[in-house]
């Protein structure tokens, strides 16, 4: 392989693999913590692993155009499967590992996968349990052999064996390796390189097909935007099947040559993050929320001196942190206090969180509270927002360093063209744009406009400084009977800024007023209960506690006050609310696998509670079916208390209580 063979910029990921193995041969490409030690592979070694795997898969019959499912946690072998499949012209289809058998069967069958590479026995069992629904799937390859030793299934292979077979083939016929390389070089960037299924916020998930050339192009643009290079490193901990993981870790990793680190297990992510200290980091707002909650709780339990120091320096950071990060003028005394704070508090805190080396961090997926956003930025972490979609292969907008706000998502990303339709919907055209939904031409046509823009389904507008602001899903924005605008997500997000509130669902479209369901945060409220000697046996009991209800009522009140200050939203203050007796759960279909509320489903499931919110009753008895982790079903019974909230007069007027 010579550089000349790779004329021009690589336009597929396997081409980048060859390119990186040559350019960055001895630089780390992949690390994985196993048996308590970080094992690493250089780009050259990774090329070898992928070569052997590819030849092994080929020997099992994987051919151009075949679909190959990849199911499991973030493990090197699964990431290698992506490249190995792509090198043979096959299309990898990552699938959410925590999907229940039924959901998984739908996706596997819809995609028509012939091969599946899975992590462990759990996934093998799941696939086996619905094998008759996936007739095309003939070959199943597993990574971890544990528990699978005496499975007698046709077409079941150990990953290690497949790779060993590939290695033996190369040993016997070295020219196979050359053949493989020339196959990669001959491949066209116009072929589909991956199929990512959407999380299914609005119904069954759809298979988003992406072309190699556009995927590579998009990744190259954003890697340049944030100056990513082989000196960067990331921790790959996001769900493998999610576009964010595929883009941020796999695509950007191949394009810029940085090192991807796979955690030891899902439970050790926080420790692994601390050990690796990545330079590029992405997390949904939910994770930052969780971190802040943990920090706050731990500080409440700390000694007097530490609490005082923390409170003082966090205050200093609030005042000077962001201006310093953005290079704005700050008085010398402020700089000195901040430097002292960095030594005593911010540095150690960032170290504990694993954020010491972060150069660029992003959050997306949901709105982030401005306090939360500022907290992390004031510590000196360059946290920014982006707005993206699977259909765009992630980036639609991204904030530039130094022009960051919590209530907007930034201007269009490089080479992306955005416009707002007459109905207020955001539409875009981008280099990473998808080639269509697999086997759903009709849906594809519905999603595209006549002139080639993709409809995002989100309502938004451009602010005066050119940053895009997203209000809600276009179809979720509704109106009260009185004609006032209701953006449920906006209300929910305002509620969720309180650490005690984990999830909220607001209603109001076509009604007289706004009302909301509230889910308490077990960690935050549980800690409060512990400090106040309140005993509880279950989530349900804690949620039904009258004192908890009082706390939540206080938060709803504060939310109304905030809403009243925004002229657009003042009419949508919450008049009545209830604390839900059960945590909304993806296993029950109430949340998507990316943990977003499935509004229509929740509304249907809890119809009687919604009715009670609007008919003036003060409590309601409900029975709700729930699914346990092992798939069995049970029933939760509860009498849910329904409470009234104060509302405030709209904006301008001085803050005074309404009747």
């Amino acid at each position, binding site marked *: 392989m010579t550089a000349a063979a790779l004329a021009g910029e690589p336009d597929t990921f396997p081409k980048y693999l060859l390119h990186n193995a040559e350019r960055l041969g001895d630089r780390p490409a992949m690390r994985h913590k*196993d*048996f*308590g*030690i970080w094992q690493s592979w250089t780009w050259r070694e990774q090329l070898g692993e992928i070569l052997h795997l590819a030849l092994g898969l080929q020997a099992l019959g994987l051919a151009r155009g075949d679909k190959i499912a990849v199911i499991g946690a973030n493990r090197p072998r699964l990431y290698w499967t992506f490249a190995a499949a792509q090198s043979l012209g096959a299309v990898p289809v990552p699938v959410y590992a925590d999907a229940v058998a039924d959901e998984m069967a739908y996706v596997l069958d819809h995609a028509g996968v012939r091969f599946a590479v899975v992590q462990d026995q759990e996934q093998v069992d799941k696939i086996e349990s619905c094998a008759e629904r996936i007739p095309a799937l003939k070959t199943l390859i597993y990574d971890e052999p*544990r*528990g699978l*030793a*005496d499975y007698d299934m046709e077409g079941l292979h150990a990953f290690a064996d497949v790779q060993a077979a590939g290695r033996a083939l190369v040993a016997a016929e070295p020219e196979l390796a050359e053949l493989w390389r020339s196959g990669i070089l001959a491949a066209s960037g116009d072929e589909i390189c991956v199929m990512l299924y959407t999380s299914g916020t609005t119904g069954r998930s759809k298979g988003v097909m992406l072309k190699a050339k556009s995927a590579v192009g998009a990744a190259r643009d954003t890697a340049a935007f944030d100056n990513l290079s082989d000196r960067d490193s990331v921790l790959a901990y996001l769900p493998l099947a999610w576009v964010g993981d595929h883009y941020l870790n796999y695509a950007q990793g191949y394009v810029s040559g940085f090192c991807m680190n796979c955690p*030891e*297990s899902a*439970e*050790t992510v926080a*420790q692994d993050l601390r050990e690796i200290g990545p330079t590029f980091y992405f997390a949904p707002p939910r994770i930052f929320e969780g971190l802040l909650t943990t920090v706050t709780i731990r500080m409440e339990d700390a000694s007097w001196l530490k609490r005082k120091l923390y409170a003082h320096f966090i205050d200093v950071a609030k005042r000077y942190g962001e201006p310093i990060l953005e290079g704005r003028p700050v008085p010398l005394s402020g700089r000195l206090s901040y430097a002292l704070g960095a030594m005593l508090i911010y540095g150690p805190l960032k170290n504990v969180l694993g954020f010491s080396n972060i150069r660029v961090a992003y959050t997306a997926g949901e709105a982030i509270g401005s306090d939360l956003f500022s907290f992390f930025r004031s510590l000196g972490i360059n946290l920014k927002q982006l707005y993206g979609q699977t259909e765009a292969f992630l980036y639609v907008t991204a904030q530039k360093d130094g022009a960051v706000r919590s209530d907007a998502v930034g201007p269009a990303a490089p080479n992306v063209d955005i416009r707002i339709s007459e109905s207020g919907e955001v539409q875009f055209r981008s280099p990473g744009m998808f080639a269509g939904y697999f086997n759903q031409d009709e849906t594809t046509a519905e999603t595209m406009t006549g002139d080639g823009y993709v409809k995002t389904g989100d309502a938004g507008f451009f602010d005066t400084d050119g940053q895009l602001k997203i209000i809600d899903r276009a179809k979720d924005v509704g109106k009260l009977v009185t004609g006032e605008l209701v953006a449920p997500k906006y209300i929910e997000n305002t509620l969720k800024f309180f650490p005690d509130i984990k999830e909220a669902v607001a209603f109001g479209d076509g009604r007289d007023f706004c009302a909301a369901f509230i889910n308490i945060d077990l960690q935050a409220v549980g800690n409060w209960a512990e400090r106040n000697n309140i005993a509880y046996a279950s989530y349900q009991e804690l949620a039904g506690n009258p004192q908890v209800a009082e706390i939540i009522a206080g938060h709803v009140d504060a939310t109304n006050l905030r809403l009243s200050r925004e002229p657009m939203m003042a009419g949508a203050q919450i008049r009545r609310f209830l604390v839900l007796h059960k945590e909304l759960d993806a296993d029950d279909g109430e949340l998507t696998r990316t943990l977003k509320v499935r509004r229509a489903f929740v509304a249907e499931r809890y119809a009687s509670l919604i009715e009670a919110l609007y008919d003036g009753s003060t409590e309601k008895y409900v029975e709700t079916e729930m699914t346990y*982790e*092992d798939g069995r079903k049970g029933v939760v019974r509860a009498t849910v208390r329904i409470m009234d909230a104060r509302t405030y007069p709209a904006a301008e007027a001085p803050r005074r209580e309404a009747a």
Partner: protein
Amino acid sequence: MNAPSALASPVGTGAARSAPGEVLMDVRNVSLSFGGVRAITDISFDVKVGEIRAIIGPNGAGKTSMLNVINGFYTPQQGTIWFHGKERKGMRPHHAVRQGIARTFQNVALFKGMSTLDNIMTGRSVHMQRNLFWQMLWHGPALAEEIEHREKVEEIIDFLEIQHIRRTPVGKLPYGLQKRVELGRALAMEPSLLLLDEPMAGMNLEEKEDMSRFIIDVNRQRGTTIALIEHDMGVVMDLSDRVVVLDYGEKIADGTPEAVKSDSRVIDAYLGVAH
């Protein structure tokens, strides 16, 4: 699922290896009394290589006493215990360990202030060869030995999926995880016979399911023979290959879970009858 014939031979180091299906331990006519209290009366049963053998019975039936006899903690007044085809005499608990018998306790008995890793490491001490001098010197052979043992311990941590609590002091862990760490320490001894004293006691449903899976995995993957005492009948019937039932220190039934379940004396012992 639980066909013992398909199993690999036990991993016991100090002990002689036996083929699956052979008798590993034979308890013959054992009686034990404390003064006037007869805890165990004339009990005989055997444990075969590669099986999961359960000892069940109502409260006070003599289950834990039986386990303590096997373990060498109590010496029976009558009867003999044969292990690997040899009769055991004047047994002490540390002899049991050397012969390849490890156990867990009904009430977790870990070193609370030590980390998970260190606790499991103590299970390896039986296999450590270097003397105090080398241990104090640290560098050299003792370090090499430590690394070798650490590798085994990491395998166990991986096996029991407790990577996230590797460095956590066990006193801070929830009960279910402490039980798992204790199992880990017993496994670190690489026993040919593992005694589990109420492994699911005090656990919630989810923890019980996890523990059951680990017990089955230990048995099937590592080929360890297991004798367990358990209260939860459902768990016992699902897990074990053969069950011994004790009542008031006597054996009232012995056989497969199905056979034992339908035995009228067992039903009477558990549900009670009008005397």
